[in-house]
């Protein structure tokens, strides 16, 4: 069967792998509807245990308005990644395409990475006894698929691609929509960029209160954002 006759889900394998100079993600907050498809898809895909999130969607009541904003947050795959520098066992490495990857076999749970990350993107997987975080679904991108969260976002709020290729969809969109990093003052040069991001979100996202004021906020506690 020729490739043109293949169904989209039949085009899987190393030969369909796309190469990226700098793998990145664009998150258009005005498209996001807070549906949690990304986070639940991520957990199913990566067997993320209850209590851990690699992708999390925050509901934030707007300070001067009665509406709620929705913000997906993941590992920012920083060019200057503090976690990578902090890891004493060298379990965290940068792949050729710039993505930050935790080698689970080398992780000895020093937890320095959790402390170092300004975005609260790393958590401890108690069952596996390793630190874990998003790796842009390496196993999917290796066979030509997009990360699970991107594929399963129903409103195309997440775009994955090559930030160093000016002709890529992500680069064009980032330019057109004036995408910005989350917490630029952390000076980590993230490869995840946001559209319609507002400064108030950054402090509020770490205050812990989601929609139930009495519930534990696990991503807040576990990802060490209370520091």
């Amino acid at each position, binding site marked *: 069967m020729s490739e043109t006759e293949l169904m989209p889900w039949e085009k899987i394998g190393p030969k369909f792998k796309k190469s990226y100079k700098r793998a990145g993600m664009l998150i258009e907050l005005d498209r996001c509807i807070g549906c949690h498809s990304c986070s639940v898809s991520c957990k199913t895909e990566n067997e993320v245990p209850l209590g851990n999130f690699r992708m999390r969607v925050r509901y934030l009541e707007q300070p001067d308005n009665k509406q709620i904003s929705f913000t997906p947050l993941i590992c920012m795959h920083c060019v200057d990644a503090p976690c990578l520098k902090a890891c004493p066992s060298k379990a965290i490495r940068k792949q050729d395409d710039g993505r930050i990857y935790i080698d689970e076999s080398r992780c000895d749970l020093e937890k320095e990475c959790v402390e170092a990350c300004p975005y609260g993107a790393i958590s401890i997987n108690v069952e596996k006894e390793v630190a874990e975080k998003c790796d842009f679904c390496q196993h999917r991108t290796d066979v030509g698929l997009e990360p699970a969260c991107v594929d399963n976002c129903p409103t195309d709020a997440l775009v994955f691609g090559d930030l160093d290729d000016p002709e890529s969809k992500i680069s064009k969109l980032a330019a057109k929509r004036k995408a910005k990093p989350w917490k630029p003052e952390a000076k980590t040069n993230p490869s995840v960029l946001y559209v319609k991001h507002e400064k108030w979100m950054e402090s509020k996202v770490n205050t812990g209160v989601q929609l139930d004021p*009495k519930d534990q906020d696990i991503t807040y506690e576990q990802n060490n954002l209370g520091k």
Partner: protein
Amino acid sequence: MSDLTRRHLLKLGSTLLAGAFTPLNVSAKTSEINWGKLGRLDYTKAKATPTICFACTNHCGVIGWEQDGIVRKIEGNPLDPNSQGNICSKAQGMISYTYYPERILYPLRRVGKRGEGKWKRITWDEAYDELAAKLRPLRENGTPEEFVFHYGRDKTKGVTKHFTNAFGTPHRLNRRSICSSNRRAPLMSFYGRDFEWETQDLENTKYCVNFGGNPYEAYQGGLFMVHRLQRARVEKGAKLVTFEVRPSNTASKSDEFHTLMPGTDGAVAGAMIHTILKENLQDEKFWNRWSNYSLEDLRKQVKDYTPEWAEQKSGVKASDIKRIAIEFAKAAPACCTMSNRGSAKHYNGMQADRLIRTLDVLVGNVGKPGGYCLSSLRGWSGHYGQEGLPKLKLPEPKASSPKPWGLGEGFNETAFKKLPKEIQDRVNNFPDKWRKKYFGELATPSEYPLSWHWYSMRVGQLVYPYIQEGRQKVSVYMSFTLGASFGYPEANVVREVLQDEKLIPFHVAIDIGYGEQSALADMILPEATSLERWDYHSTNNYGLIPYTGVRQPLVKPQGESKTMPQMFRELAHKIGGGMEKHFTYKDDESFYKDWYKNLPMEWEEFKRRGIWQDATREKDYELYERPLTEAELKDASVPKGEGELVQKGGKVIGIVKDGKPVRGFPTPNRKINVFDPIFEEAAKAVGLPLTDGNASSAPVFHDVPEHVNLADDHYIFSTFKWNVHTQGRSGHWKYNAEIIHTNPVFMHPDTGKALGVKEGDSVELSVFRPHGHTYRAKEEGIMGSFQNHVRFLKGMHPKVVMCSHHVGHFEHGIVGKSDTKESLPKAAKTPSLVDQDLKGGVWWSKKNGGIGGGVHINDALPINPAPLIGGQNWYDNVCKIEKV
């Protein structure tokens, strides 16, 4: 785990982690499916199969990925023209429930008292033999109606009806009144079909006015709508205006969000009509061509509905209402309304939706690009809008429908004579058209004739009180994927009835899990899940070109679970007595293959794609203007006069417009019935005073009776659905429950101030009985109450408090109950299903120091059917609130 590691982990110091240290007592058998420990999927080895999602009412085309015999991931099927490859978080829930360690996989028979939780495993033969022995005599003795089948979610698209028809019982009960009958009635009245409801052309709309619809979270078709709406908004600048009582995700993503008083959507719509007429912005040509009501009469009808009047009712500023009405009309025809439970689940909801529907007719956007369109309804059998599509039908030899009840030749007199005299008298006074459709009080409640005038919507929430009152004798009660004892209003009454062995001598529950309903059964039959079975699928397409898809099994049914077609086939053969003649297939695949045999595509290719559509077919715009084809006109009588009806074989098939026969709308007069005498006729038949707004033949705004002069210390208590949940079905889907497992009381900060409560404080909510002409109206005192803690949200209407209704399960195992231990009866326990993740319980369990699983609120919500139609008025409840 080394001490060093443990110390490091404990350094994190959160209570949630403490729970996770429970020893992992896992016996690693090779046959086990240890969910959570399978490793990442290898996509080069895994098999992809297209199927249809079953996690909510949307039914999106999906691809299931299976490796080593286990379904590991759900993705969207890009070939589905409705979802266009999009899915939501609930899709992964299918995996959660298929491999839930507390899933029921064997037939069970109660051994202790009913509800005591003691069961033994039985074989399918034992189950069938006992069931057939109970059912057979009912058929033989001429009392088949004593077999009552009641479903919560039935997407077999005819299989269960085929069984109840072959058996001879009219009692195939549903939950439409719980869901949508107040909203479907206006569609049936206006357009003659509810078309699975309207299919707005959201991709191309410029302006959408939303009355309490929440497609961004939970709405039949919501996912199909929302990706189109978001594209239209973000890429093309379309405007979405929402009237809501809380900051729902839809309200939060809307370009304008106006909080309004519950039950006043009709007032706002009425004032919009008033404004459009005053500004002369109506599409007079369209109105006069297609509506059955004169503009002059409409003007009179809405004369007093000024924006200022509507502001007083709704709290929405008159200037906003005026501006929105003008913007809406000026965007025509690329504009549309949207409404759902927010407008409809009220005492006045049926009329509110009639006013909202009138807006679209008035600006002439019906069937236009970007407008309010109607698309092919499900079941391809040549209905209106399905012209030229291959006919698809259930392939078994058809069983005739049961005989209607009543006196005289051709009626089931025996069953009729058992009814209380008062009911017999009422039915005997019904016009013939209704007497011929009357099938007793459970199927066709005589006080709610509109619930079965168009088709059988029924009044599900009255089934249990009616059984209690003795309106129908029940011998065998079969519930199918039904959570009435958890999710119906006054769920305590449901449980009372199900506990009573005199009222329900035998209850067999068909389900995949041990829920609140199956816990009260005498026998449980395990059903195969949506990842293990076939189903026929079609629904309205927001891309406006009909399509069909197939749900197909990705894996074999776990344990001894069976599909419904298989179960009913085998049971019918056990019952015998002629029933077996209607069940001729040997296996499911050949049955479904024949169902689709008219599709112009090979079966294997259809299975490979999962979807069939003729994408070259014209979009469903302006179906009503389409000329009748030569084939349709063969043997038809075509009159000459403008507006006269075209008839064929005693049926009206079109209308003459501009001297030519066109289809028109599928109503008896082929027009849009803005005015409909059926409401007055129904009111007269049941003695509803004509002063009640529900009795009005013209669309009208009328107040919710118990909201009039609402006391300062009384509030409206309303409920809502979360995006990660689907009714009461999803409480045990672990990843979804992890995100939402509680239901705090949402209120405006000012409401908190008035009540003297702070965020996080606990309050007691006490609910009163409703007023109007409804069930147990005006009974004094509190009908139910519960306690929960408060969350402030600025987007709440200050007179409204809200809780979601999904949580607070008292069955459904370790996740459903937010527990630390499994609670599935031992006899049902399945050693093959293990979930590493659930060892030690869920982190939010109270026993692990968490908040627990929320509060069950449905016992405190009164049964409150709207007059004539019977739709549950979920959002009318008046309550008082006290700080605990």
